[in-house]
């Protein structure tokens, strides 16, 4: 057994970088140096992660054909009761190690990219310190040994996302977006917290290993007692999933994600495409044995929410014109597919294919979606606009970006031999064997994905020849190198044997390409590309005609089905105007009014009583003498 205790440095190092750059960055170092420091720190972490991954997967992680959960470090951080305590530690198992690789790889790419992209921006060191904070929180989240540690880092990624979306804090739209992202996810986290509370009340533990042990007792707690027809365990898992819905921008908590694109593009690539938004998927995967064994109803919820979100987002993505928003909806759609895949899986064996597919897709998605965002960043950097209506014919000016972007688009469309072909194929297979409706939805989403991605691609790099104010030029090397590296990753990660590494019960799962599924999925991808080619390769009037034909449908999709307006209505009108303001009014006028009324009554009464004290001595004497006489009469005649 190899000692993994060094993995704690994976957490300590970025936290230290955050403090260093955040507290002293602008004083001690020049901007460039702090960028390099941050990147260097992350480089070390990346190397550590790769070493860990290698040692875990290929040297020591496997005992008797199954990967073990290894608690590398565990320190009690806060003791609640004898059994309930928050620990800070590092848990290594296939999914956490896989996430380690994903996060550090993408994060390193983004760091390098940002050196170029953010050059000369005010608050350069602040940017890098926030990135370090994010890396710290995200790594802590995936390495968490217990659900409460996960919740802690869950909140921390939320706040680092808030800080990074609002990086341009003088831009009102960015401020609004960051606020929205934080509050929406916070609301979802409320569900997560309630889920944790219910879960811990029933099982008396936070620890993941105890909780998710499929043969243990914790997993069976609370499955019998019912509430509204569902068991307590199911309720708690639905609440926990609510947290995942918020963070992963699933319907109906997806509204923050498109707005979050107000943040700098590298941030979008790192947080809102590759790592943080998949935390919800990771959460479900982490708790998967409980979902699969004790709360199958909750797992169905996961599947349907995922499938619906993926279709919903794919439709909206076809109409948006802001390239980052298209990518954001595409992210939402892809994560929906992962959720759906998890939802159709069950624990162990062949039935666990969906779990493996989901993790596989998470991995490949992180690579190609980061690539897409970074590519989009390079384009925006060159054109100074987010809107594809301002672009066209860029292939001549940005050759490297063009090629890498094309690779990413082919990948997401599921064209072999690019990586997403394999992972998406597994998802479709899993759905096909479990639920034909969900399979149909995902199949349609695969086609739509190919269509809107190539709509984007043709609009940017082909289409009309737009005249630019100044000729767009290719990004510097710090930006193109990550693009190339990620393109290579998109090409080859599909060949990683996930079925041997990351499965629901950590044992090897035999699976291969099913031609029954693979061929149709490639065909629908090609069909999508074909339609996009016809419509957008050259400037044509087809899109406009289509938009007028399906006027209402187009309008609804373009306005994101008015979900934003609904939320605005709920928050502004209902919460602010119909709850908060009446409460404030009630407090001022009723509660405080009662207190003031008591004071007023006292005052009025005392004014009345004051009349007796006329200051006329003769009146006093009169009362006094009358009193004496009365008393005298009383004592003489009446007192017996």
């Amino acid at each position, binding site marked *: 057994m190899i000692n993994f205790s060094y993995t704690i440095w994976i957490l300590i190092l970025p936290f230290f970088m955050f403090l260093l750059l955040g507290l002293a960055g602008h004083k001690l170092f020049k901007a460039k140096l702090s960028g390099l420091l941050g990147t260097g720190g992350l480089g070390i972490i990346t190397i550590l992660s790769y070493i860990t991954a290698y040692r875990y997967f290929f040297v020591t992680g496997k005992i008797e054909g199954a990967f073990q959960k290894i608690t590398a470090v565990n320190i009690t951080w806060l003791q609640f009761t004898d059994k309930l305590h928050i620990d800070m530690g590092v848990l290594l198992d296939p999914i956490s190690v896989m996430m380690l690789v994903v996060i550090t790889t993408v994060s390193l790419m983004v760091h390098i990219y940002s050196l170029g992209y953010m050059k000369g921006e005010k608050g350069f060191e602040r940017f890098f310190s926030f990135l370090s904070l994010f890396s710290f929180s995200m790594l802590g989240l995936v390495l968490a040994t217990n659900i409460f540690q996960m919740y802690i880092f869950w909140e921390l990624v939320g706040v680092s996302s808030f800080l990074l979306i609002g990086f341009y804090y003088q831009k009102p739209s960015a401020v609004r977006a960051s606020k929205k992202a934080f509050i929406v996810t916070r609301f979802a986290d409320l569900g997560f917290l309630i889920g944790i509370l219910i879960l811990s009340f029933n099982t008396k533990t936070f620890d993941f290993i105890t909780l998710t042990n499929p043969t243990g007792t914790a997993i069976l707690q609370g499955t019998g007692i019912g509430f509204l027809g569902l068991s307590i365990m199911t309720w708690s898992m639905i609440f926990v999933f609510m947290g995942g819905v918020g963070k992963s921008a699933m319907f109906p908590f997806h509204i923050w994600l498109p707005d979050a694109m107000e943040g700098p593009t590298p941030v979008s690539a790192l947080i809102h495409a590759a790592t943080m938004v998949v935390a919800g998927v990771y959460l479900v995967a982490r708790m998967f044995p409980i979902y699969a064994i004790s709360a199958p109803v909750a797992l169905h919820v996961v599947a349907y929410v995922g499938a619906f979100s993926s279709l919903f987002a794919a439709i909206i993505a076809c109409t948006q014109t802001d390239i980052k928003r298209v990518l954001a909806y595409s992210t939402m759609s892809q994560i929906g597919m992962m959720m759906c895949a998890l939802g159709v899986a069950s624990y162990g064996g062949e039935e666990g294919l969906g779990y493996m597919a989901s993790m596989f897709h998470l991995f490949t998605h992180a690579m190609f979606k980061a690539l897409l965002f970074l590519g989009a960043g390079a384009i925006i950097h060159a054109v100074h606009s987010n809107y594809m209506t301002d672009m066209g014919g860029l292939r001549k000016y940005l050759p490297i970006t063009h090629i890498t972007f094309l690779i990413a688009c082919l990948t997401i469309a599921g064209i072999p031999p690019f990586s997403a072909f394999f992972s998406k194929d597994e998802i479709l297979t899993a759905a096909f064997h479990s639920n034909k409706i969900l399979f149909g939805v995902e199949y349609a989403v695969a086609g739509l994905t190919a269509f809107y991605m190539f709509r984007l691609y043709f609009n940017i790099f082909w289409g009309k020849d737009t005249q630019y104010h100044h000729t767009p030029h290719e990004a510097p090397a710090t930006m193109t190198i990550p693009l190339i590296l990620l393109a290579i990753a998109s090409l080859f990660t599909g060949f990683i044997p996930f079925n041997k590494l990351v499965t629901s019960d950590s044992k090897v799962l035999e699976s291969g390409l099913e031609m029954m599924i693979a061929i149709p999925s490639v065909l629908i991808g090609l069909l999508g590309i074909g339609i996009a080619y016809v419509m957008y390769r050259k400037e044509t009037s087809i899109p406009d005609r289509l938009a007028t034909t399906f006027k209402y449908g187009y309008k609804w999709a373009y306005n994101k089905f008015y979900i934003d307006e609904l939320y605005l209505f709920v928050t502004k009108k209902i919460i602010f105007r119909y709850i908060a303001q009446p409460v404030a009014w009630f407090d001022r006028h009723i509660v405080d009014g009662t207190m003031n009324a008591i004071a007023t009554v006292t005052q009025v009464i005392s004014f009345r009583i*004051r009349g007796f*004290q*006329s*200051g*006329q*001595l*003769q009146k006093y*004497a*009169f009362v006094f*003498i009358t009193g004496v006489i009365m008393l005298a009469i009383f004592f003489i005649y009446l007192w017996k």
Partner: protein
Amino acid sequence: MNSGIPLQYFLILATVMFFTGVYGFLTRRNLITILMSVELILNSVNINFLAFNRYLYPHKLEGMFFSVFVIAVAASEAAVAIAIIINIYRRFTTINVEDVNEMKF
């Protein structure tokens, strides 16, 4: 000894004097008249003291002493009261008690 005027006569006189004084004290608005009423009250008490002393404890002198004390106190009181009244008159040019209400809340 018990011949002569009975005790009741003294007491009736004292009571009448006392209530005349009380009535004057309560109803008059002129400070001098009020002062005079107070004197009436005091003197009615004096009569009571003397009468009881003479009729109940003829061998003791406490009643006498007490009335002498009361006379002394009444004298000093009259002096102080008149001094106050004069000052009030100088300041307000009236000795009507109802007009002197500076200290009323």
